[in-house]
C-alpha cells in the first residue's frame, strides 16, 4: 500500500512536469496548425491510397493503383506546379487493418487527400474517422449505397458508382428487352443484396415479375444446386450479380449445366469483366450486362486510355483501372482549381465537387446533394470475336442519378 502511494505521488509529479514541456500526442491533438503551414513551400501534395494488395480484393486494388499511377505519370507527377506523391497502404480488405493504416496515413504521413478503398466494409469503417478529421476523401471504388445516403459526410465524395446505379439501370431495360419474368440471383453479401434490390425495384416498377431469388454465399465453389433451382420453365431470364472468382464459376457452370441454351443471362458488368472473361472461355457468349465503363467503349478518351494503359502495363485495362484513372483525373482537376493550395479541406472539397470531366467512361460529374457520381451506364453484350470473347456496347442509359435515400 505504501508503495502504491509513493508511486501515485511520483506519477502525478511526472505528469505535471511533462505536460509542461511535451510534444506528444496530447499536444498535437489540440493544435493542428503545424500541419497546415507546410503547403506554402515546395512540399508535395500527398495522396493516400488505401487499397488492398493482399487478400481477396488484391487484384482490384492493384488495378486501381495502376490507373492512378498512369494518370499522374502522364502529368509527370506534377499538378499546378506541385509534386504529387501517392502513399499506398495495404488494407488487406480488412476493416481493422484499414483503420490502422488510415491512422498511419493521417497521423504519420500527413496526407492531404485520401482515396480508395475497394471493400465497402472498409469505407464504412473509416467513415467516422475521416469525417472527424475533416480529411477530403474521394471514394474510387467501394459502392455501398449508404456511403452517399445515411452515412453521407461533407468530406466524402464518390467517383465510382453506387450499387443502386448498377442494379437499377438494368431494370427497365430488362423489362423492355429481355422479358416479363426474371429470376434474381446474387452473392450473399451486402453489395450483392443492394444490387439485386435495386434491380428488382426498377424491374417490378416497369411491370416485370420476379420469378424467384436465391443468394449463394460469397466465394461459393459449386453452383450446381442453385442452378437447379433457377432452371424453371416459363422464365425469360436470370439476373445475376457475381464478381471475381464467383463470376468465373457461375458463368461457366451456367453454361455446363445447359442453362445457356435455355435461359438468357443478364447481370452486372462484373459478370463479364475484363479480368474474368479470359478464364470463362466461351461461356459468357450472349450475356448482357450493365456497367459504367467497358473496354469496348468507343470514345476518344477511352481509346487513348486503354492504349496508354496497355503500353505501360502490358495488359488490358480493367474497370478498376479506369476508376483509378478517373479518380486521379478528378483530384488533379481539383488541385488545379485551387492552384495547388490544398491546405483547406473545405475548399478542396468545394473544388472537387464541382469537377466535371470527360473521362474514359464518358462525361461524369458529382451530385451535390448525395456526393455520388452522375454517370452513364452502358448495356454491354458479350460476343465472340476471333475465337475470344469481347464485349460490345449495345445501349446507353444516360446520366444515372442515385436517389440518395
Amino acid at each position, binding site marked *: 500500500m505504501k508503495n502504491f502511494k509513493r508511486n501515485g505521488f511520483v506519477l502525478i509529479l511526472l505528469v505535471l512536469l511533462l505536460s509542461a514541456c511535451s510534444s506528444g500526442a496530447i499536444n498535437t491533438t489540440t493544435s493542428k496548425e503545424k500541419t497546415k503551414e507546410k503547403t506554402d513551400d515546395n512540399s508535395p501534395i500527398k495522396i493516400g491510397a488505401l487499397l488492398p494488395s493482399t487478400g481477396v480484393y488484391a487484384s482490384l486494388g492493384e488495378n486501381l493503383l495502376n490507373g492512378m499511377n498512369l494518370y499522374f505519370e502522364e502529368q509527370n507527377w506534377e499538378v499546378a506546379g506541385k509534386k504529387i506523391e501517392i502513399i499506398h497502404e495495404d488494407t*488487406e480488405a480488412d476493416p481493422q487493418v484499414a483503420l490502422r493504416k488510415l491512422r498511419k496515413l493521417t497521423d504519420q504521413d500527413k496526407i492531404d487527400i485520401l482515396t480508395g478503398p475497394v471493400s465497402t466494409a472498409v469505407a464504412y469503417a473509416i467513415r*467516422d474517422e475521416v469525417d472527424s478529421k475533416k480529411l477530403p476523401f474521394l471514394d474510387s471504388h467501394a459502392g455501398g449505397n449508404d456511403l452517399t445516403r445515411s*452515412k453521407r459526410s461533407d468530406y466524402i465524395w464518390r467517383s465510382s458508382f453506387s450499387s443502386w446505379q448498377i442494379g437499377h439501370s438494368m431494370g427497365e431495360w430488362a423489362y423492355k428487352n429481355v422479358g416479363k419474368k426474371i429470376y434474381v440471383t446474387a452473392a450473399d453479401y451486402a453489395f450483392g443484396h443492394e444490387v439485386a434490390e435495386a434491380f428488382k425495384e426498377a424491374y417490378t416498377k416497369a411491370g416485370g415479375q420476379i420469378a424467384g431469388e436465391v443468394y449463394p454465399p460469397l466465394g461459393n465453389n459449386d453452383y450446381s444446386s442453385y442452378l437447379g433451382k433457377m432452371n424453371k420453365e416459363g422464365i425469360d431470364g436470370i439476373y445475376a450479380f457475381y464478381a471475381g472468382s464467383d463470376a468465373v464459376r457461375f458463368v461457366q457452370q451456367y453454361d455446363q449445366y445447359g442453362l445457356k441454351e435455355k435461359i438468357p443471362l443478364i447481370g452486372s458488368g462484373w459478370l463479364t469483366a475484363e479480368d474474368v472473361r479470359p478464364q470463362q472461355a466461351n461461356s459468357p457468349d450472349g450475356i448482357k450486362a450493365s456497367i459504367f465503363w467497358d473496354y469496348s467503349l468507343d470514345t476518344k478518351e477511352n481509346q487513348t486510355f486503354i492504349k496508354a494503359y496497355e503500353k505501360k502495363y502490358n495488359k488490358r485495362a480493367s474497370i478498376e483501372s479506369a476508376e483509378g484513372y478517373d479518380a486521379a483525373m478528378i483530384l488533379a482537376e481539383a488541385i488545379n482549381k485551387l492552384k495547388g493550395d490544398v491546405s483547406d479541406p473545405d475548399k478542396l472539397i468545394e473544388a472537387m465537387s464541382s469537377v466535371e470531366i470527360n473521362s474514359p467512361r464518358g462525361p461524369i460529374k458529382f451530385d451535390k446533394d448525395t456526393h455520388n457520381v452522375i454517370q452513364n451506364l452502358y448495356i454491354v453484350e458479350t460476343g465472340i470475336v476471333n475465337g475470344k470473347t469481347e464485349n460490345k456496347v449495345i445501349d446507353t442509359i444516360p446520366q444515372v442519378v442515385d436517389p440518395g435515400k
Partner: protein
Amino acid sequence: MKKGPIKGTLLFLLMVLVPFFLSIYYVNILSEILILGVFAVSLNILVGQTGMVSLGHAAFFGAGAYATGLAAIKFSTNIFVTLGIGLLFAFLLALIIGLLSTKAHGFYFLMLTLACSQIFYSLVYQWTTVTGGSNGLSGIAPLDVFGDIRLSNQVFVYYFILVVMAILLFLLSRFLHSPLGSVFIGIKENEERMKSIGYNTALYKNISFLISGTMGGLAGGLYVIFNGFISPTDVYWTASGSVLIMVLIGGVGTLWGPVIGAAFIVILETIVSSYTENWMMIIGTAFILFVIFAPNGIVGIFNRAKRIVVKQQKIEHKEPNIIPIKQQTKMDG
C-alpha cells in the same frame, strides 16, 4: 523480494507517459496492441493455462464487440453499461460453446471450437438487419465514462484501455498464482491424474473457458470503443488463428507473452506492409524461425538471455511459475 508488482507499476507509469512523448499515431498503435493483448491474454488462459488449444476464440471477441456496439447504438452511451452488456453476451456464448466443447480433447476440441465460431460467424454475417452483415456495424459514437466525461479523444481511449488492461493483468497475475490457478496448470499437465486426485476437471475446464471467453468479449468491447466499428472479418476463423499465433509467438503460458506477441504481430504487420506487399512471407518466415529456434516464444528468448546474463545468481525463491505449454499437447486425442 517482490519485484513483480514494482516492475509492473513502473511499466504502467511509463505507459501513462507515452502520449506525452509519442505522436497520436503511435498512441493508437499502442491502444490496438493493448486490445489485442487483452484478447491474446484471454486465449492464453485456455491454451497456456489449462492446455486447451482453441481455434474459435474470435467468436467471443465478436460477441463482445457486437453486443457492446449494438448496446451503444440502441440503449446507452455509458461505457460501463455497454461494456457490461458485451461481457454478459460473451459470457453466455462461452457458456454454450464451453458446455459443448470442453468434453472433447486436443485436436477435436480445436475443431469443435472452430465449428462453433464459424456458426457464430455465419449468424453475424447473415443477420444483416441487426449486425449490418458483411458491411459491419459502424457509426458507434464515443461513449461516456462518468457524467460528462466522454471518450472523444483517442488519448482518453488509450488511457481507458490502459487502466482496464492494468486491472486485468493485476487480477490475472493474482489468479494465476493462486491455488485455483494451479488447478488449471495441473489440468494442462495431466488431466487424468487431476481427476484421480479428486478434481472435477470438467468443471474447471468450463470455468477456464468461461473466464477466457468473457475476457475475449471484453477485448471485443474495447475494440469497438476504440474503433467505433466491427465487421465479420474480425469474427472469421483467421482472426482466431492470428490471436493463437500471437500467443504462441509471445510465449505460451506466460503472463506477458501474449501481450508481447500481439505487439510483435501488430508492429511487424504495420511496418513491413508499408514497405512490401509480401509481408505474409516475412511473417511466415518469422513463424518458422520461432518454431525451430525459439519454441518458447519471445518470453522464452528473454528468459534464456536473462539466464545467461545472471548465470551465477542463485535463484532462491521460486514461486510456482507458469510452465510453457507442454510441447506434446495431445492433438491426436
